[in-house]
């Protein structure tokens, strides 16, 4: 039996954080109903699209297995359905503010207990946090990275800013939201009560910056250089005859570290480093994030220029060090190690073609997270969900007529017959 079998999740959130959180709950057995604005979750229209489809690849992966209810042009006319959905749910994940939720009939959302459904677990995700002067301001993955200081750890001062290519604020918040929901469900089992949890992209990034916050905490009393500092040059590893590598020696236990570096430098033709006083004899100061790496990197690179990366990685690993080449993501997925973990699976799209998707990111000795389902069309399940929620046909018809809901929203919101320009295949931008 799945962990979350029988758990009903209502997701009223767009983009990445809320939808990814709900996806993971679905993998664990919950049923997810996604409520979307009239023109759909913005991620539907992001680039790139699945081949032969208007749906973005990211939307497909993050929303597989969910049902979609589409609001119409006048969402408050759907109050009755929203209240019914939330009244019958176990979990409500939303990125909407209390004002908007109030207009949809969820006026008591900020009260404790939540009178409409005191057992409900509510996870509210925002860019900047539930309180404070920016509480109602819009935000994004990029702006959260910038405000949390993440862009300082890429590039160089004076150069145009760079972001992390991964959507770390959004995906990180998704994981925290799943934690919050699961912990709140555990507590509900004991107390019988739900509760509301607020999370934000900025908060998540600062939580995940704990090592750096501590290091910067009090410059007047800290000793030693701060590794991985914002003012360091761009980090691109060690050049070799072909691809750059990253490597480290010294281990992680005790003050002295583990052996292996001496044997490595001997085999790699770097024996001269044994007599060089700038190198400690564990590799700790001159490899990895060692404090003298920037000064000493070139000493390794002179010899590494004679060896291919794969050979150096093998020698380093043989002597107990850590090493890897900088792989592209497609090569990472194709690597024998990744394949051994069965990380990539396939689901059949609505059109019947196979789409590759990624499995739940952990494995269990008994639990078997699901890897199935396709992403819904916008409003595909509006009528079915309304019927299931006890909304009579005549009431549904009225909601549709008043613009509270839409059953075929995609047609209404299709970009005004914009043909995709010839030759604009998204994948042609690959490097």
């Amino acid at each position, binding site marked *: 039996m799945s*962990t979350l079998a029988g758990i009903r999740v209502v997701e009223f959130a767009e983009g990445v954080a809320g939808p990814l959180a709900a996806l993971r709950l679905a993998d664990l057995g919950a049923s997810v109903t996604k409520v979307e604005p009239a023109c759909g979750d913005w991620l539907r229209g992001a680039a790139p699209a699945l081949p032969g489809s208007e749906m973005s690849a990211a939307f*497909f992966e993050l929303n597989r297995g969910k049902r979609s209810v589409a609001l119409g042009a006048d969402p408050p006319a759907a109050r009755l359905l929203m209240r019914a959905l939330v009244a019958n749910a176990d979990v409500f994940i939303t990125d909407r503010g209390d004002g908007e939720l109030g207009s949809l009939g969820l006026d008591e959302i900020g009260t404790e207990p939540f009178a409409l459904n005191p057992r409900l677990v509510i996870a509210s995700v925002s860019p900047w946090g539930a309180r404070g002067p920016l509480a109602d301001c819009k935000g994004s993955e990029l702006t959260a990275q910038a405000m949390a200081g993440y862009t300082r750890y890429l590039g160089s001062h004076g150069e145009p800013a760079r972001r992390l290519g991964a959507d770390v604020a959004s995906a990180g918040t*998704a994981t925290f939201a799943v934690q919050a929901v699961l*912990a709140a469900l555990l507590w509900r089992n004991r107390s019988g009560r739900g509760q509301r949890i607020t999370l934000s992209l900025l908060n998540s990034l600062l939580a995940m910056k704990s*090592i750096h916050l501590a290091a910067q905490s009090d410059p007047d009393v800290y000793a030693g*250089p701060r590794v991985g500092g914002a003012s360091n040059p761009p980090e691109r590893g060690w050049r070799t005859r072909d691809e750059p590598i990253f490597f480290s020696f010294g281990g992680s236990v005790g003050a002295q570290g583990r052996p292996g570096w001496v044997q490595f430098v001997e085999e790699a033709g770097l024996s001269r480093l044994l007599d060089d006083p700038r190198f400690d004899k564990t590799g700790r100061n001159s490899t990895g994030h060692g404090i003298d790496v920037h000064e000493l990197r070139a000493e390794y690179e002179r010899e590494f220029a004679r060896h291919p990366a794969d050979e150096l990685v093998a020698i380093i690993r043989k002597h107990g060090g850590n090493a890897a080449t900088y792989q592209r993501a497609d090569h990472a997925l194709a690597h024998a*190690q990744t394949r051994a973990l069965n990380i990539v699976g396939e689901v059949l799209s609505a059109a019947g073609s196979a789409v590759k998707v990624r499995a739940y990111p952990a494995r269990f000795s008994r639990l078997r997270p699901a890897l199935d389902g396709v992403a819904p069309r916008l409003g595909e399940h509006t009528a079915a969900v309304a019927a299931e929620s006890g909304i009579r046909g005549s009431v549904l018809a009225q909601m549709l007529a008043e613009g509270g809901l839409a059953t075929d929203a995609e047609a209404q919101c299709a970009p005004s017959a914009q043909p995709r320009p010839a030759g604009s295949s998204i994948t042609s931008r690959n490097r």
Partner: protein
Amino acid sequence: MTDATTGPLAGTRVMDVSIMAAGPWTGALLGMLGAEVIKVEPPAGDGTRWVMPTQRGMGTNFISMNVNKKDIILDFKTAQGREAALKLAATCDVFVQNFRVGVIERLGLDYESLRKVNPRLVYCAISGFGETGPLAKAGCADPIMQAFSGFARANGAPGDALEAFRFTGFIDLTTASVATEAVLAALLEREVSGEGQKVEVSMLEAALEIQATRIAELLGAGLIPHPLGSESPGLAPDRAFQALDHEIFVTVHNEGEWGGFCEAIEHPELAQDTRFATSRLRVTHRAELNAAIEPVIRAKPAIWWLRVFQRKGVPSGLAHHFETFRHHQQVVANEMIARVTTRDWGVVSVGGVPWHFSNTPCEVRAPARPGEHTAEVLAGLGMEQREAVPAGEKA
């Protein structure tokens, strides 16, 4: 540190024998959620104690990764140390370890051994590359996984091959976060089945989870992640623009925000331009789009743009650093940074809790001294400290 906590996991007990970051922050998150977490260090000590910088003699890595824990020292290589470990595991709900694959069996603390003394135990094993496959026994660390997983190949200026994140431990903390999620799932499953289970989390799978959107674009549409400066593959505009003084970061998610953006920059004709009608079209015509916007933004200061974008409902922000965000009212009001008062190492800023529960509030507590609770915890097991730790090997 008092024992009473109010988090949702109050009453849950965790044994954390991990070191460095990916394992320890798992214990820290469970501790912040209210569990009683007992960190078990080897006599040689968790290596993060010596990672620079140190504050009053203690590695700030150690301080930040071991909040909300008790700390005991056991030598698993002695019979007494192993006995204490098994006795302690029998009292716990969760066990966390991140030894290299194969080592834990030699220590006799593998899942099968612990399941015999505690079938309800949720056993969390954190590895670099997973427990099967050709690299199962290879060592790993944050920058290694940034390299292996493709994470670094998505960063840099356009045209660059790669750039690693100069931010030690980000993938470690990602791994810890995924591990915490999985442990909670197993705890919830235990409520139904009455049994614990083994949970395996690898830095590799976590590094792909944090790249969820980029990997989805690769798997679904064949788009290989590559450096785009401050831009993203999915949306446009979604980047930093150079204003008169410094950069303004701005994102347009949908057509409504695009309309607001065009109003904000006082170029309503762009909103009518069919080349820019949808996110996907704006991505396709990114170069023309940027050419139209860049000179406009450059003419006024970043603060001016920040305010006008806020008024028009367009996501925007400025780049901050520690000294500007630590006192920012938004960060303070939401307690995103916690200040913990340690007994020996002074006051330290660490990450605040990422979740704010209305009924079961969580808090960040200062880490313990290494070995501070050895006697207390062993006494609770009916053992004396000298049985488990040879004299002179205490921290």
